[in-house]
């Protein structure tokens, strides 16, 4: 970490002892900016998950070889690509801090909730960037026609928020357990299964051109999950972080 970063952190992050209302947002922003800066310098996380998504997509597209699939299969494949890409990349946020030892600095300088908020926003931005990059490729390579583009984008956005929230919580569990890679998928998958199921069914409808009114149940399902996931994460994070 360079001098400029640490100066900035010490300037904006309030100590854990006195949590003023504005301090939390500022501290969360500092954590987010720190992570974004690390990411911009190395590009490791986005590059990893993007390449992983490309590889998965290529395997699928190669195997299908120009045939047009049913909407339900297309929707399943899209969410499979997004889920596995997230399982490769999102654990990095906390595991990297644990590996480099910087997790201690975070403990000392930032409140737990600020750390969580910053990390969750970072993971969300990462997943949104991935979705923006991979979805057009997916649509092109598999010759998918989207009947209701607006609904399709809403479903993607809501699904990705829930995915990012749960992934961040599981990532900190993995990091505190001193575990790396493999267990992430095992822990995150069962919690995310309902959201994946709803997302796939909703996306199937959107590809078929269903109007917003017909898909609203799926959207509220995804939004509700995202809200519950974020709330539970904020409740559970302090004991995980300190325990």
């Amino acid at each position, binding site marked *: 970490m360079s001098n400029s970063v640490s100066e900035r952190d010490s300037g904006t992050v309030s100590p854990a002892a006195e949590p003023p209302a504005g301090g939390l947002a500022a501290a969360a922003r500092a954590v987010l900016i720190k992570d974004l800066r690390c990411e911009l310098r190395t590009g490791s996380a986005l590059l990893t998950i993007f390449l992983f998504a490309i590889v998965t997509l290529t395997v699928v597209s190669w195997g299908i070889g120009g045939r047009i699939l049913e909407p339900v299969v297309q929707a399943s494949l899209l969410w499979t690509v997004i889920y596995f890409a997230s399982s490769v990349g999102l654990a990095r946020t906390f595991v990297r801090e644990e590996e480099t030892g910087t997790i201690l600095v975070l403990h000392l300088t930032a409140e737990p909730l600020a750390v969580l908020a910053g990390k969750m926003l970072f993971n969300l931005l990462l997943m949104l960037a991935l979705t923006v990059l991979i979805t057009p490729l997916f649509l092109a390579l598999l010759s998918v026609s989207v009947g209701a583009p607006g609904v399709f984008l809403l479903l993607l956005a809501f699904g990705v928020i829930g995915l990012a929230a749960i992934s961040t*919580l599981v990532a900190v569990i993995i990091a505190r*357990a001193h575990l790396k890679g493999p267990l992430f998928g*095992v822990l995150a998958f069962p*919690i995310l299964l309902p959201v994946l199921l709803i997302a796939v069914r909703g996306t199937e409808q959107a590809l078929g051109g269903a109007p917003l009114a017909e898909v609203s149940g799926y959207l509220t*399902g995804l939004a509700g*999950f995202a809200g519950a996931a974020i709330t539970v994460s904020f409740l559970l994070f302090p004991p995980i972080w300190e325990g």
Partner: protein
Amino acid sequence: MRDKLLHTVLPVVTGIWLAGAIVAAFMAVPPISGLGELGRIAWFHIPSAWVSVLAFAVATVNSIIYLARRGIEADDRAVAAAGLGLLFALIATISGAFWARRAWGVFWNWDPREASIVILLLLYGAYFALRAAIDDERRRGVLAAAYNIAAFITVPYLVFVVPRVMESLHPDPVVNADGSGGMAGDMMGVLILTTIGFTLLFLWIFSIAVRYIRLRREVLHGGAL
């Protein structure tokens, strides 16, 4: 007094009750029409599913208590209950698959309840994988409890959302107010008998499992707590 009740009275009551319930399940009611003798699986399948849900609820409540108070006994109870929940969920899954084969022609068809129980098996399989990977007792307790509570947000989805998204072959909920589409009265009676029997069985095994976990920890740490 409480220990005496748990360790002497409970096993005897459980044994007598279950023996009676099993006899009733085979003798007191005719086979379910169209399913033959295999239909009697229901008298054991439904209580197993109920006990697994009860056990997971006990595990979650104890996880919350552990995070709030950090007494290791709550973690012991959570582990014991989660393990039993997994066991009874497996029994429910396997017995249900045989029922499905007989009633619907296939062992498995991703009915909502089948989907839900698979999610539960995966969740608590992951719970034990997480526990097995952590050596430090305190950290293991905290992280496993947090995971258990986080997993709980899937419950409303399993109960309300998955059944609406997926097609169901399961019979209607057997307890409905007007009795239409429900069970015959004597069959309902048998089901209540076996459900109480399985619940007693769970309580008895649970008390043994909690004792076992505590004793093993005391032996491993070479001293009394």
